[in-house]
């Protein structure tokens, strides 16, 4: 799983990076705003998943999603909006713009892993979010 994390806070990116590593991400790229994300995408290294914050300088997350959905080669990227914007209308806007999933800050580690699973990315058993028969019913424990 290749992931692009777009958030203007380095602290948040660092936190997301740790969760993603535990969730089995092979490669994690970071961008501090939508413009930087577009520049990274332009290099041709297209991720499987993008975690996108909403409020960022230069180009915000909603603009980034709209831009990504206009480009055929970026359309397959699964997008999860990870933001403090929590009004119902905002969630609807993000989904309409092309986000697949939406995670409201604050969130706990497992909610992110579950969102990734919903989009078809299976975390390794040790990440502990998965359950059910695949893990012999063993529930994980927070690392």
């Amino acid at each position, binding site marked *: 799983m290749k992931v692009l994390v777009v958030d203007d*806070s380095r602290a948040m990116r660092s*936190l997301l990076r740790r969760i993603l590593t535990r969730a089995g991400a092979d490669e994690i790229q970071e961008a501090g705003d939508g413009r930087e994300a577009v520049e990274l995408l332009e290099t041709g290294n297209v991720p499987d998943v993008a975690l996108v914050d909403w409020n960022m*300088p230069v180009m915000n997350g909603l603009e980034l999603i709209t831009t990504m959905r206009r480009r055929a080669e970026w359309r397959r990227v699964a997008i999860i909006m990870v933001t*403090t914007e*929590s*009004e119902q209308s905002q969630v609807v806007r993000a989904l309409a713009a092309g986000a697949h999933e939406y995670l409201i*800050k*604050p969130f706990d*580690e497992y909610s992110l892993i579950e969102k990734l699973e919903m989009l078809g990315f299976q975390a390794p058993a040790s990440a502990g979010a998965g359950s059910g028969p695949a893990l012999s019913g063993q529930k994980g424990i927070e690392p």
Partner: protein
Amino acid sequence: MTLLSTEEVAQLTQEIWSALLAPNGTPQLEVGGAAGHEFQALTNISGEWNGTVCVSCSRTAAMRATSVMFDIPESEVTTTDVVDAVGELVNVVGGNIKALLPGPTVLSLPNVLEGEPPVHMDNLELEQEVRFSWMAEPVVVSVWASNADD
């Protein structure tokens, strides 16, 4: 007019602390305690409701929060890191408070001040303030309403 109850602000702040700052083993945020303002992080809400949300705390609390969020020892924390981490905290607190206020509104990017006297909120009226204690260090969340359209 009270738009925000103490309980609401306390609950959402505690949730944010437990989600962003507890996984590494730091204890919960407790309600009650003194003021502290060595670091002040501000974000503005504008639109249907106008005002400012402020998270202020002692240097020790700010350093500790930064160390947890970046997962680095406090000795390695730089001021730039603190500004980033505390800015993200006010962003999350502000966003959650924004959802409790009349909308639609827009949240500004955070602004962090260090070592200044408590920001004097000209033309602003204190809407709500909750003081917390985080491992005996002060953390205060305050919400200021603009008088302009009241």
